[in-house]
């Protein structure tokens, strides 16, 4: 049994569609050797759009230098949830956030917290690559310029591009339009753009869903590299991807209220990735990860 080094190894673990057990074993070993420092402490978080809750009563902790994955069926509120961590929901007029998210012990939604300051520290990469209609260089330099970091801009841009494993592909055409890049390159450019402002946390909402397998692998490899310096939160539809990159996995699902005809996202289970995939504590998680649902 590959998973035998885990305390809670089941007698007969659920078989997961296509997830390599070796990868999970490696995840488990890594997790066992890493200290858990709480970076985000979410408690009883509820997000509503126009007073209709989309996500209800979520409590979990996110650990420093971990990769944390959110999985779950479409519409269960994963994007809604990840957008809470850098207050992107502030930009949606109808959205309302209840409950608390502590970041280094400070309530992100506290009265004296400025969302602009939050976003400087907590960067975000979106599902669809969204480079600005500017040159490659200007895309990466955008953040530093906005923050008034004018010194050594060239070096900073180069560092960010190297970090995002894009430098060699673009170093000879930094002045070219970002739209001249392929989709995978554009997404890595968006990652570089985030890294250029040196955030503490990277939020990624399905960063590889629009990409081909090779670009996806490049971005997954990148996450392994980046988690030494950053804390990464990723939303993914791809369970193999969650198994490959994530230390912790949260499974969300939808609760349907027939009477009011409402569908509300809830957190079903949150645990170390190997546990979620081989020994889930909840029937719904097991159905989902074994492919019997969604």
């Amino acid at each position, binding site marked *: 049994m590959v998973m035998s080094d885990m305390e809670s190894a089941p007698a007969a673990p659920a078989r997961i569609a296509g997830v390599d057990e070796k990868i999970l074993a490696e995840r488990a070993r890594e997790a066992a050797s890493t200290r858990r420092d709480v970076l985000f402490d979410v408690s009883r978080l509820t997000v509503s759009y126009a007073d209709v809750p989309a996500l209800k009563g979520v409590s979990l902790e996110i650990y420093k230098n971990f990769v944390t994955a959110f999985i779950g069926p479409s519409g269960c509120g994963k994007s809604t949830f990840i957008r809470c961590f850098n207050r992107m929901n502030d*930009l949606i007029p109808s959205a309302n956030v209840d409950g608390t998210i502590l970041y280094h012990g400070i309530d992100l939604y506290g009265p004296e917290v400025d969302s602009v300051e939050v*976003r400087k520290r907590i960067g975000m990469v*979106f599902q669809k690559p969204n*480079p600005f*209609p500017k040159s490659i260089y200007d895309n990466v330099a955008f953040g530093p310029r906005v923050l008034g970091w004018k010194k050594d801009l060239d070096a900073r841009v180069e560092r960010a591009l190297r970090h995002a494993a894009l430098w060699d592909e673009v170093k000879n055409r930094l002045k070219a339009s970002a739209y001249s890049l392929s989709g995978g390159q554009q997404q890595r450019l968006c990652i570089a753009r*985030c890294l250029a402002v040196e955030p503490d946390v990277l939020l990624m909402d399905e960063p590889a869903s629009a990409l081909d397998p090779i670009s996806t692998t490049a971005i997954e490899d990148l996450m392994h590299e980046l988690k030494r310096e950053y804390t990464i939160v990723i939303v993914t539809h791809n369970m193999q991807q969650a198994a490959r990159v994530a230390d912790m996995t949260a499974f969300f699902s939808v609760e349907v209220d027939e009477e009011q005809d409402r569908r509300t996202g809830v957190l079903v289970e949150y645990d170390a990735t190997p546990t979620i995939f081989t020994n889930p504590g909840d029937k719904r998680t097991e159905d989902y990860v074994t492919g019997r649902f969604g």
Partner: protein
Amino acid sequence: MTAQDATAAAQPEPIRLRGERRRWGEDVVKGILALCALVSVATTIGIIIALVEPSIEFFREVSIVDFFSGDRWAPLFTPASFGIQPLLVGTLVVTFWACVVCLPCGLGAAIYMSEYARPRVRNVLKPALETLAGIPTVVFGFFALTFFTPLLQDLGLGVNVFNVLAAGLVVGVMLIPVVASVSEDAMSAVPQELRDGAYALGSTRLQVSTRIVVPAAISGIIASYMLAISRAIGETMIVLIAAGGIAKITFDPREQSQTMTAFIGATGIGDIPTGSIEYKTIFAVGLTLFVITFAMNMLSIRLVRKFREIYE
């Protein structure tokens, strides 16, 4: 395979792609639509012909060099003088002061509506602003003369009863909705993802507006500017009422001055004999005005194309 299938395959029914009959209704609609488009083209051509003919006669009597190089405009006096420069300067100064108002205010209003205002506020503000565009210019003219000029006098600016400053500024106010509306459309069309990307890097609302939205919408903004400048050059009623009727070269906006359009308006409603030199003057000035606005539009199309290449 059954026997039936086999025969069906052997003798396929011929496919008919020819129309059952000609669709006459469609031809009629097409004709009517083409006619609608033709009306404006035909009108433009008609205007050009109507302008060119008397203008040619005019330039038989007045040399074209004198017309453009002369600095005294007195076509109705004896001895008459046909130097158009005073009218050009009048138009230029009015347009300048109109731009001082409408370009920044229009863009500001567009940024506010597109980037700052909540949807509910925008849904009230945009129609309200567009109503401003529907007010007849004669109303703006009297507003300039009876409200704005006294205000400028109270401020101690020493303006004349008729002055270019009040007229130009009010033309600018009138054009704010033109700039705001066209620019706002362009800015609203900028994908939300670009804004999200910039906000996620810790940009403020102002930074997102000025560094992402405005550059991405620049071709629409330039189009709105060009439209406003053309309208300022062509504005007649406000300058006729508020800017005075003396054509002279002055860059002092406190004084009165005449624009090309105001000359055409004032002379056109006076009783001058058809076919006289005064009469032809109107067309010569009209043609000059037409050429200037035409050039502006060409420039605007080129600018819009140029920026579109960069940002799309």
